[in-house]
């Protein structure tokens, strides 16, 4: 029998997170187009940023790729592809550690820079601070799952529990019991992750959803008519200040 707490955490909260993430993003795109920005601070400081920001962002992109691979691809598929459990484990451990270290190292340098450069510090909002705190918690917990639970302390096959649970959430036949017994590091990582995703649409992190991939496919010079959208814009948009 599953406890109410587990039910709330691993059944209700995930759907709340999805609702907030999707709903918040749609709301922000519709009412606060002006507020969508990277809010880059490179103008104030670029020496540290030049190293730290690509390190963090590319590290994070690899981390996301690893999550897609580990969570969405079922075990049976990787076995069919000739990747045994042992090989998978080593691969996940090495790649996860490298990507995680890049992201954590980059984030640490970025936070140090943000703290130490007066101009960048002055441009930091409370929302930003909360975002960084959550990012740190999520990343460190993630590193703990990869290198402690699943490395130093032995091997834990999350593809029997966490991954099926995650896919169940997406496929609308959730099974919270799968998460009830996973190690604490995983629980912390997943929980903090869900909180982070709830904050996502309301923080500067939303710039990730505006990644300009279409740039590769459009003509260089954009022409637009003055008439486009004349008078159609709402006179007053949301003035959301993150």
């Amino acid at each position, binding site marked *: 029998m599953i406890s109410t707490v587990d039910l709330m955490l691993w059944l209700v909260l995930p759907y709340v997170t999805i609702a907030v993430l999707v709903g918040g993003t749609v709301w922000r795109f519709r009412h606060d*187009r*002006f507020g*969508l*920005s*990277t*809010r*880059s*601070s*490179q*103008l*104030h*400081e*670029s020496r540290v*940023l*030049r*190293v730290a*920001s*690509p390190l*963090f*962002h*590319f590290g994070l992109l690899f981390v996301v790729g690893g999550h897609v691979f580990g969570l969405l691809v079922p075990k049976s598929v990787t076995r069919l592809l000739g990747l045994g459990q042992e090989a998978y484990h080593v691969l996940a451990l090495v790649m996860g550690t490298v990507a995680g270290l890049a992201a954590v190292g980059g984030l640490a340098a970025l936070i140090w820079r943000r703290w130490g450069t*007066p*101009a960048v*510090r*002055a*441009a930091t909002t409370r929302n930003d601070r909360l975002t960084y705190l959550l990012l740190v918690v999520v990343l460190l917990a993630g590193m703990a799952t990869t290198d402690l639970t699943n490395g130093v302390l032995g091997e834990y096959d999350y593809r029997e529990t966490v991954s099926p649970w995650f896919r169940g959430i997406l496929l609308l036949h959730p099974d919270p019991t799968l998460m009830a017994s996973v190690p604490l590091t995983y629980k912390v990582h997943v929980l903090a992750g869900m909180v982070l995703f709830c904050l996502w649409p309301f923080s500067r992190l939303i*710039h990730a959803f*505006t990644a*300009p991939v*279409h*740039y*590769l496919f*459009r003509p*260089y*010079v*954009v*022409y*637009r*008519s*003055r*008439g486009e959208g*004349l*008078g*159609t814009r709402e*006179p*007053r*948009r949301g*003035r959301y200040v993150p």
Partner: protein
Amino acid sequence: MRVMAQLAMVMNLDKCIGCHTCSVTCKQTWTNREGTEYVWFNNVETRPGQGYPRRYEDQERWRGGWELTRRGRLRLRGGSRLRRLGRLFANPDLPELTDYYEPWTYDYRTLTTAPLGDDSPVARPISAITGAPTSVRSGPNWDDSLGGGPENLAADPVVARLRDELGTAVRFEFEQAFMFYLPRICEHCLNPSCVASCPSGAMYKRVEDGIVLVDQDRCRGWRMCVSGCPYKKVYFNHRTGKAEKCTFCYPRMEVGQPTVCAETCVGRLRYIGVMLYDVDRVTRAASTPDEKDLYPAQLDVFLDPDDPEVAAAAERDGVPHEWVEAARRSPVRDLICTYRLALPLHPEYRTMPMVWYVPPLSPVVDALARTGFDGEDTGNLFGAIESLRIPVEYLAELFTAGDPEPVRASLRRLAAMRSFMRSVNLGEVPDGAAASQVGLTEDQLRAMYRLLALARYEERYVIPTAGVGQAHDLEAVATRCSLDTDGGPGMGGGDSARGGPVELFVWNPHSRPDGLFPGSRPR
């Protein structure tokens, strides 16, 4: 042929006295806000000098504008699309705030609150970015009138290029130096590299008038446009995280008024008018292999509105009749095409800029006068234009990618006009030879003189309004102030949640007028 209309500007540099009225009025109108403290859509720099931001013309460093690939195709100097997308997280070509300057104010409060003492209290400089006390190390116009001396001025990228490539030493010693002022706004290029750099597609060139704008709702702050523009005329608002730039005062243009910088110019040196051009020829012209041919190539892109074929094509392509009419009367077209006086700024960036300059004759006249000769005499002036290397070669580096001949031709016409008009004013018989020597008739010299020296408001600014044909569409925008955008310089509009505009005439002094406190959150 596909005809498009472009609002263009010409500045007559001989008349610029470096008073900065244009800069100040522009700043008061557009960038007197948080986040844009360091931004000057219009700035006036002294040449020789490093400019604003410092050494912006050094494209080896900032990689703005276009370059030709080995196969002769245009590519952004900052690299291919994929390469630049890979640099989204840290743009290596982005100037830092210190390359512009750190904006500051003064601690005026101590002047009134300092305790009584023997010394007068001092207002110390305070950084407008951090609010901490700072020391002023540079400003928006740091080398005004050759300020900073020879060491500072030798860092001018144009001076450096003259020295390295032509062996010409520009001298800065007193009585040997030359200088002139160069007011700069956005060039509203025909082939804008900022627009091409924008990953989000937020920047665009307006079809109707060619004004290059940033859609504030689509900009995501990737800041590729800032480094993509070789003139460094796109700025990053560090408060909103959006790019901002000179708008050619489009809200004024749409109702037929000149830009604020032109309107307030004390020397009346700015001209605004319509140019018709063939948009299909732009890319080929910008890909001209030899940099020195870029100026004539751009002239070839322009179309003659008096040509019936062009007029018919313009009608076919939706250019309003009023605009073709305006193009026929365009003072800008006269200066660029008819008299061939105006030249583009740095055509070698291959962006096809549309703010052109009449090069200044005064450095040549001054150099001549210093030698004891009559600086206004045609023969002397012509000789000086041929023999003096320094001002001419410097101007050529600015306006014709280093080819001195178009600069000389322009200066000769100015010289011919001067001496011709002097004879007229002194009641002498004007020397007709001077006119024919520069390929103009006496009537043309008179017309040119009229345009350069006397032209009235309506002659300097020939601006068709947004058009009767679009009156219905415009009604929709006219209900609100065009400046009233988020983070923009508008007055906040009739936002009833914030109290709305305050009618001071009927205001009860005992009540709190919410509209006067825009900082308060909407309830």
